[in-house]
């Protein structure tokens, strides 16, 4: 769990990893530069560096991001949630950028996500087309990429999660932020770096009334347990 000044979902993710999944995990401060020994690095949600300039714009120059980039290049699993997704976009580890939500509001609500690619390390425990209920909470989640990039993402099955309604239908109403093609989460070409705006760490226990996030965490866990995290 990488911690930037202003991260605020880091403890939630560590709780899920340790208490819910029963795995080892620790915080990595943004000044650290060594990620050796980790199976997966999570960039958590929050407001790194106060979201100054643009969300993620300052965080991407943190010392730890050099290590994250090297970790990803070596095939390590990297998961960016919400602000973590924004950091991955700013760092160029994922294509595209985030615009302000089309409603111009901070949207904090339940969304339904359709699993578009169930063959990634982050979704192997899901059925293709499965619909998950996962909450979002953000102001800049309106995913943008030029038409060529969007076409490439679709062609390579890099759109992993899409906002849909409860019936699994892709509608404008189901899209909380105006995101291009209802995109909620994308993965890089090599399949080891995933960014998503919804928060799977907020729906991983029965006491929270929703355990759909477990499908993503269980995917990650089973992937790592069945042969290590390296993808490339």
């Amino acid at each position, binding site marked *: 769990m990488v911690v930037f000044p202003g991260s605020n979902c880091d403890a939630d993710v560590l709780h899920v990893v340790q208490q819910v999944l029963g795995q080892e995990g620790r915080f990595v401060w943004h000044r650290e530069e060594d990620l050796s020994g980790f199976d997966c690095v999570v960039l958590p949600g929050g407001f790194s560096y106060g979201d100054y*300039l*643009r969300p993620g*714009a*300052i965080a991407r*120059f943190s010392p730890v991001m050099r290590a994250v980039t090297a970790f990803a290049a070596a095939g390590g699993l990297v998961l960016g949630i919400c602000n973590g997704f924004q950091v991955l*976009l*700013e760092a160029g580890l994922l*294509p*595209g*950028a985030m*615009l*302000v*939500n*089309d*409603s*111009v509001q901070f949207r904090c609500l339940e969304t339904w996500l359709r699993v578009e690619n169930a063959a990634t390390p982050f979704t192997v425990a899901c059925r293709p087309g499965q619909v998950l209920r996962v909450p979002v909470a953000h102001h800049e989640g*309106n995913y*943008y*990429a*030029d038409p060529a990039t969007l076409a490439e993402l679709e062609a390579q099955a890099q759109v992993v999660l899409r906002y849909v309604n409860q019936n699994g239908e892709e509608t404008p109403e189901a899209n909380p932020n*105006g995101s291009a093609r209802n995109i909620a989460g994308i993965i890089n070409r090599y399949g080891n770096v995933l960014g998503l705006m919804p928060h799977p760490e907020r729906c991983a226990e029965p006491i929270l009334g929703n355990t759909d996030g477990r499908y993503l965490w269980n995917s990650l866990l089973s992937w790592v347990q069945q042969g290590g995290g390296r993808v490339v």
Partner: protein
Amino acid sequence: MIGLRHLPGAGQGQMLYSGRIHVTLKSGVLDPQGDTVARSLLALGYDQVKQVRIGKYLQVGLEAEGQEEARAALEEMCRQLLANPVIEQYEIEVVPA
């Protein structure tokens, strides 16, 4: 933050410049804030308003040997940090500080 008033005086052969930078969304990129402000202006009766685009204005005080060097440095800053080339464009004006 370093305010302009905190900058040390110009070094040997160096001049102080002020870079005035406008960062705006590229044309064609949706600007939800601008659209909302445009609707507000129309609601206030400004029927002549056709479009509003919202951007950022940055003032960067810097030392350089000349205006061109200052501009080149500012260009690099825009490319690296101040603008996101996926969605934004920038305009730079350099004036003696």
